C-alpha cells in the first residue's frame, strides 16, 4: 500500500472538519475522493502535504509515518501536490516553473530530460517557455501544473479540483492527460466536485460528506449507484 490513512481527525482550531477518515491508495492506482463544496477534501490534501496538522490518527506513506516528515521533505519522498487553483508561480517563467519542479535533489540530475518530456507532452509550454507563467490561460496553467508535478518523478500525484475553472472541453482533455499519466505507473489521488469526470478515470472512489466518508467502491460501481446518481448527478 502506497498511502494509508487511518482514523484521521482534523480541523481548524475548535472546528473539526474531518471525522475518522480511513482510506488508502495502492501502488499504480487512480483514486478519486468526491464530495461537494466544504466537505473537507482540500483539508485532507493539505494534511498530506504537511500544511495542516491532524488531531488524531495515523498516515503512512510507503510504510513510513508521513506526519513525522516536514512538509518540504515530502517532495523528496515522491509526493506531488497540485493545489486548488493550480499553484502556478506566476512571477516566474514557464521554464522556471518546470525547473523549480526539479528542486528535490534526487531528481535534479534528470531535469533536462524531464523538461524535454514535458515539452513533448505539451508543445505549447515549449512555445511559451520564456513567458511569465501568470500570462498563461487556465488550461495551459493546468498543463504546466501537471508537468511541474511530474518533474519530481512522483510516486503519488495529488490533484485538487483539476477541473475547476476550466471550459468543459478542456476538462475532458485534462482528465485524458491524467489517465495518460496514470498509465506511466504514477499513483493518483484526485479530489473533485465533478463526480462524473473524476470517477470515470479512477479505479476506486470515495465519497465524502461534511467530513466523513460515506461510501467506498470501485469507481464504475459508484457511477452506477442509484443513490449517488440521485444526490450528485441529478439523474
Amino acid at each position, binding site marked *: 500500500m502506497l498511502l494509508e490513512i487511518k482514523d484521521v481527525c482534523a480541523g481548524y482550531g475548535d472546528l473539526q472538519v474531518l471525522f475518522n477518515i480511513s482510506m488508502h491508495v495502492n501502488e499504480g492506482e487512480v483514486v478519486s475522493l468526491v464530495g461537494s463544496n466544504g466537505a473537507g477534501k482540500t483539508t485532507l490534501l493539505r494534511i498530506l*502535504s*504537511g*500544511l495542516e496538522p491532524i488531531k488524531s490518527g495515523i498516515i503512512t506513506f510507503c510504510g513510513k509515518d508521513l506526519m513525522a516528515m*516536514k*512538509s*518540504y*521533505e*515530502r*517532495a*523528496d519522498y515522491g509526493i*506531488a*501536490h497540485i*493545489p486548488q487553483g493550480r*499553484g502556478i*508561480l*506566476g*512571477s*516566474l517563467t514557464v521554464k*522556471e516553473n518546470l*525547473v*523549480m*519542479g526539479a*528542486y*528535490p535533489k534526487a531528481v535534479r540530475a534528470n531535469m533536462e530530460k524531464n523538461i524535454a518530456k514535458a515539452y513533448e507532452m505539451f508543445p505549447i509550454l515549449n512555445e511559451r517557455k520564456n513567458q511569465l507563467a501568470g500570462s498563461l490561460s487556465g488550461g495551459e496553467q493546468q498543463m504546466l501544473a501537471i508537468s*511541474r508535478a511530474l518533474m*519530481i518523478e512522483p510516486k503519488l500525484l495529488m490533484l485538487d479540483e483539476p477541473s475547476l475553472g476550466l471550459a468543459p472541453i478542456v476538462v475532458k482533455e485534462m482528465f485524458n492527460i491524467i489517465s495518460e499519466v496514470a498509465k506511466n505507473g504514477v499513483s493518483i489521488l484526485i479530489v473533485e466536485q465533478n463526480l462524473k469526470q473524476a470517477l470515470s478515470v479512477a479505479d476506486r472512489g470515495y465519497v465524502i460528506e461534511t467530513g466523513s466518508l460515506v461510501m467506498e467502491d470501485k469507481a464504475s460501481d459508484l457511477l452506477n449507484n442509484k443513490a449517488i446518481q440521485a444526490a450528485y448527478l441529478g439523474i
Partner: protein
Amino acid sequence: MTWVFVQSLISGILSGGVYALFGVGITIIFGVMKMVDFSACSQLVWGMYFTWIFYAVTGLNCYYAIPFVVICMGALAFVIFKLIVRPLLGSNDTSFILVTLGLSYFLQNLAEFVFGTDPKTIPSPIKTSSIQIGEYTIGLPRFIAFCAMIVLVFAVYALLNKTTLGRAMRATAEKPEVAQMLGINTKKTFTIAFMIGVIFAGISGLLITPIYYVTPTSGSMFRTAAYIAVIIGGLGDIKGALVGGIVIGVIEGLVTGMISNDLGPVGIGLALLLVLYIRPQGFFGKGERRA
C-alpha cells in the same frame, strides 16, 4: 546656476546610491517575507561600528573591512532571525513592525552602551579625496559607495534570476505553501533573505563611514529618506528601490544645493506626497495591498 545644478545633481545621484543599497536590503526582506524590517537603520549603525572595530584593530581603511563586516552582519542577522523573527513567522504584520521597531531601539542602545556616544571617525586619505571632471567635483567615498551599490545590486539580481537558490527565494516570495510542496525549505529561504537584507544594511553603514561620524544615532537620517525611497519605488521591487533611492538622493541634493541646506527632508517629504498622490503604488509597485 547651471554649475550649482549639475554639481548638486551629481552629488545627489551619488548619495542616492547608498539609499538605494539600503533600500534594496529592505526590499529583499519585504519581497520574500512580506514584512518591513524597521530595525535596518540600527543594523546600519552596527555596520559602521564593525567597520570601526576593524579599523581600530588593523588600522586599515574601511574597504578592507568588507569581508569582516559581511561576516559580523551575517552572524548578527542569523541570531536576530533565530531569536526574534522566526517565532513571529505566520503571525500578523503588526507584531513584526512592533518587534523590529523595538529591536531597532535595542540595537541602538546596545551600541551606545558598548561604544559610548562620542563620535568616532576612521581617518584615511580617501575621506577627502575627490575626482575632478572639468569644473565638477566628485567625492571619492561617495563615488566608491555608488559603484559598490551597483555591483551588489547586480549580484543580487543575478542571484535571484540565475540561481536555484534565487528561484527558490522568488517561489517562496510568491507562494510559500507551493514552495514547500516543491521541496523548498521556506524557513531557510527566509533566513537567507533576512541575512542578505541585514548584510546590505551593514555594508551601507560601512560605505558611509568615510562620510559621516560613527555614532549610535548615525542611522537616523536613513530612517526617513531610505524608507521613503523604498515606498516611492514601489515596495517589494528591487528596480523600484534602486530608482527610488537615486531619486531621493537627487531631490535631497538639489534642494540642499540650490535652496537651503536645511530643507532636504522637506523636499523628500514633498516628493513622497507627490508620488503617493499620483501613483500610490510607487513607480514599480503592482498596487498589491495588504490588509
